[in-house]
């Protein structure tokens, strides 16, 4: 019995403390250092945040350079695939065009929708609003976080919380700002919460990321809300940060859960624009 305990103790000591001929550090000492770093990071003070920001900038650049061969292969593969899909796409577009022409567009519906939108839009997202155009430098496919790293940061005037759009559609918001880079939390991330309005009936809801690709869902919908119908989803601007009326996507019903098909596929984003708006407390609803 005592011998077993001794064996166990020796093996534990060996596993944690033994360094071997070429090892400079024992696992135990590195675990202690990792724990210290962890607690410093989760309780980061202002200087700690600045240091982390500088470190992030540096590592993101290295990662961008290191990932370029992989990105090049990925880009080339997509390019070739797209090339071969052109014919099929053309046929589909022709069919779609014919179907659209045949459709009797309900203009009254569009006018009503427009009126409803104008009611709550306090500030329109317009060309005069300042935008910062940025390139996506890192898009690591992680099961735990849906985010992008862009090549603009506080130097370009970007601040935490600012909305990020692609081709006029909302894709996420800035959650981390470094001097030369920033992280954008995508709408499908589990931590993403965006107040939205649904047209044509102006219902208010919260768009919640599900942690799964391109499948955010709507929560806090009005009672007896008709989930079968299709709605267009826009930002409501009620958080006082996002401008109202930025298009997000269209709803679809999945087993009683109202999900949103985003207009901008988060997996296909290369360039984005950050809207330089600051929080407007007057618009915030508590």
């Amino acid at each position, binding site marked *: 019995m005592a011998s077993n305990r001794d064996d166990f103790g020796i093996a534990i000591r060996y596993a*944690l403390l033994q360094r*071997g001929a070429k090892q400079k550090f024992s*696992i135990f000492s590195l*675990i202690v250092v990792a724990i210290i770093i962890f607690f410093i990071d989760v309780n980061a003070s202002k200087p700690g945040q600045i240091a982390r920001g500088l470190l992030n900038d540096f590592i993101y650049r290295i990662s961008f350079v290191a990932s370029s061969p992989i990105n090049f292969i990925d880009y080339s593969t997509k390019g070739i695939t797209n090339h071969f899909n052109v014919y099929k796409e053309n046929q589909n577009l022709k069919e779609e065009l014919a179907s659209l022409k045949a459709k009797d567009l309900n203009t009254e519906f569009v006018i009503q929708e427009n009126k409803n939108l104008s009611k709550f839009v306090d500030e329109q997202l317009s060309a005069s609003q300042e935008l910062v155009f940025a390139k996506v430098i890192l898009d690591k496919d992680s099961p735990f976080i849906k985010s992008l790293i862009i090549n603009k940061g506080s130097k370009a005037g970007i601040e935490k919380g600012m909305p990020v759009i692609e081709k006029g559609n909302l894709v996420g918001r800035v959650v981390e700002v470094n001097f030369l880079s920033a992280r954008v939390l995508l709408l499908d991330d589990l931590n993403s919460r965006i107040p939205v309005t649904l047209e044509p009936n102006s219902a208010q809801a919260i768009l919640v990321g599900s942690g799964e*690709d391109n499948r955010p869902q709507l929560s806090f919908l009005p009672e007896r809300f008709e989930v079968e119908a299709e709605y267009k989803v826009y930002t409501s601007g009620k958080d006082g940060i996002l401008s109202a009326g930025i298009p997000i996507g269209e709803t679809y019903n999945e087993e009683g859960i109202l999900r949103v098909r985003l207009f901008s596929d988060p997996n296909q984003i290369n360039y984005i624009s950050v809207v330089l708006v600051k929080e407007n407390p007057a618009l915030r609803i508590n």
Partner: protein
Amino acid sequence: MAIALKNLKFHLARLLPLLLLYGFSITTLDLNLTGYFSIVSFNLQLLIIFYWVLRNPEVLGFGHIFFAGILNDIITNFPLGSSALMYLVVAATANYFRAKAIRKYLMLDWLFLLIALVFAYAFVLFILAKFSSVEIIYDQFFYNGFFTLLLYPIIYILFKFYSNLVGIRDTDD
């Protein structure tokens, strides 16, 4: 000259596991299939660490394992040190089994890996849940661990083949 060239080739070939570890930690390289099946993702770094620490820890080095974890945390926006802790717990468990096990074969390795993953995920989830504000998707962690475990035989065969090819021997001290 020929001996020097052979030595150089051997040293370069020995670097591949380390390069893979850094590659999966810092670049956009991954084998995740979340685009096709939302639950299928792997933590290849853990498999690389487990296999090589169990056979020959000198190939990776504990300092590099720690550093790769820190880099991975920066890229994935986890609190600094959490991935490093996960990697080190797997390394420590593999090192423990290395001291205890006389023979190493796939099924035994697989069992050891299961234990190592349970320790690593439990430890990291505990500190993340208790001390950080990160919202944890427990399902995703479970699936990630499960599919990582499932992938091990393939990694085992590939690395075994590679070790035989370039002549990296197991160390038993």
